[in-house]
């Protein structure tokens, strides 16, 4: 594992060589391995849901996908297929192959895409507000045609929950504040690439291949993907183990209600 990548102490305590660059990774706890694939906020350092998952007696490994927090800029990732291949590589590289997985938002979408072609990549999955379905009568909101402050309010119900991503650390030297902003911009760019202009790439037609047990979690106050999508997902996936609508949680319910998500995951993986 490499250290010393830019901002390593803030966005990614560890890094792994990946293609011509690196990916960031956060690892916590001891016990059976659980993987975590982040959402639009990436992994802004060690964050609460990872700590809560580790506290349930698991080793948690949370790699950052290419372009997201702590990883180098993606090269050659143009299509969804490119991203699915990259996700497959990252899962193997992080030692998560076949492990149970918690995934959120764009990470949950990629996990489903990968499971559709490679179900053995994961064990059971707990998915928090995946992107990937679209209903004309109840559309997914646009989180990018808005100001940064509004986007922040759309991502979590409690804006303080995303402080590690949106706010610059107070101990960061001035020149690194600029780089912190660049990393934040690149993370937002990578997320936008995955879901722009509409987050629907035909996944519904591939979901019959996802045989893994899936537990669905959705924030009742998700301002990006309406809470009604919880039932849509439950109806579309072939092997649903459970559904959970979390009060006082927005799109990234794993940031708003980390303890609740960890409890759901621990029960699903028991």
């Amino acid at each position, binding site marked *: 594992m490499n250290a010393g990548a830019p901002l390593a102490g803030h966005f990614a305590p560890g890094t792994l060589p990946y293609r011509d660059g690196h990916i960031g990774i956060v690892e916590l706890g001891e016990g059976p391995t659980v993987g975590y694939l982040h959402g639009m906020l990436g992994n802004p350092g060690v964050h609460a849901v990872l700590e809560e998952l580790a506290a349930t007696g698991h080793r948690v490994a949370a790699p950052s996908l290419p372009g997201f927090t702590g990883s180098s800029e993606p090269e050659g990732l143009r299509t969804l297929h490119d991203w699915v291949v990259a996700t497959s590589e990252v899962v193997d590289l992080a030692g998560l192959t076949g492990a149970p997985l918690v995934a959120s938002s764009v990470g949950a979408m990629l996990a489903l895409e990968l499971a559709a072609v490679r179900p053995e990549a994961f064990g059971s999955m707990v998915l928090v507000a995946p992107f990937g379905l679209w209903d004309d009568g109840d559309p997914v909101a646009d989180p990018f045609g808005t100001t940064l402050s509004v986007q922040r309010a759309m991502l979590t119900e409690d804006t303080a929950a995303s402080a590690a991503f949106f706010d610059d650390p107070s101990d960061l030297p001035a020149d690194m504040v600029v780089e912190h902003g660049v990393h934040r911009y690149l993370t937002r760019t990578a997320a936008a*690439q995955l879901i722009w202009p509409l987050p629907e790439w035909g996944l519904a037609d591939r979901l019959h291949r996802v045989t893994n047990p899936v537990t669905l979690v959705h924030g009742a106050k998700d301002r990006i993907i309406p809470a009604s999508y919880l039932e849509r997902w439950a109806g579309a996936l072939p092997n649903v183990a459970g559904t959970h609508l979390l009060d006082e949680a927005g799109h990234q319910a794993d940031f708003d209600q980390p303890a609740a998500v960890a409890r759901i995951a621990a029960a699903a993986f028991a």
Partner: protein
Amino acid sequence: MKSIFFHLMPYPELPPDFPEQHRSVWVDIDPKLYDPTVGHQTYNAYLDQLEFAAQCGFDAVGINEHHSNGYGLMPSPNIIAAALSRNCPDTNIVVLGDSVALYNPPLRVAEEIAMLDGITGGRMIAGFPVGSPMDTIYAYGQNPATLRERYHEGVDLIRQAWTSDEVFSFNGNYNKLRYVNVWPRPVQQPHPPIWIPGGGSVDTWDWCAAEDLVYCYLSYFGYKAGLRTMQGFWKKVQELGKETNPFQGGFAQFVAVADTEAEAWDLYREPAEYFFNTCLHVYAGYADPPGYKTPNTVRAGVEGMVERAAREATARREANAADAAKAGSAKPSFGSKKLSFEEMVEKGYIILGNPTQVTEQVHELATTMNVGHLMVFSHFGNMDPELVKMNTEMYATKVMPEVAGLFEDDYEDHWWPKTDHQLAPVGSRAQ
């Protein structure tokens, strides 16, 4: 120095309370505000104005591309260029430009410019913008993360298509073409001059400097504010050890000329206020989609032109809201505090005055920014057609002759249609 009469073609009848009642003039502007009868009259009036400018002796007429935009009624600039091509037989036409990444395949641009070059006998200048975020990302659904790569690939395809004398295959990341063969071919060989309109991306400076392309800053905020951007470009040119030929630069400027300064203040107030306070009422949430800027530009802290417009509108809006809150008003409003005409002139957004005063300022603009191509906005906002005519004619007859000689003796304009290559008007155009 070349003067290009440039038109944005704004919709002239947005309601007076537009900023208060609507979120944005761009992207989600209310379709119900568009009256096709007004559109019919407007298109024809604006074409008249472009043709009049050509008759007045402007070196060229210029147009651009916008989508879902209340201040730019040209989703297809090549259609306007085609309408002009037969009625402006002696004038060059600057399409600044075609947003290459929005054409599928971009070969369409190579073909249409070649057609226009054929009709005009070699009087086309081809501009290739990346395109604003509003046009490309929001109105046309391009992915911000791949837009620039797609754009550069498209420009590469067009240049290859114009210069290759063989049919060839193009294996791009976004364009797979077994047979590339532009028929017709442009009159200008190997191809019309290429200008790149930019908004402040440092990577665009690098690219234009390295590839010897014209860098044009189409700002709405005048030469005083645009100086830093143009200096950034020239610094890149110098770093490469190349000549800082002013004809490799272009800039856009609002100009308001009258017989006296007092008359100019009186005549141009309303159209200026309409443009800056209504037409530039752009929602800030559309200005900076993640991925549109390169990391280098983010790092350099350079702000794009439309981003600035949106930011300033938002700042005024917030100040307005604060005032309303103090006054106890709970009524929601999208409105902004108005930018005053005096501020517009003081800050250089508009060059205003009698012919002598305007000439002095244009001279200052050209020499401080080192630009040999000036895009002149003689029309702006909802300007009355008779006033447009007066402004256009006064610039052409009293200002342009005074600045036309700038740079001409010391530098060669490599980026202008070569008159010795142009074909004489034929058919009914010859008369």
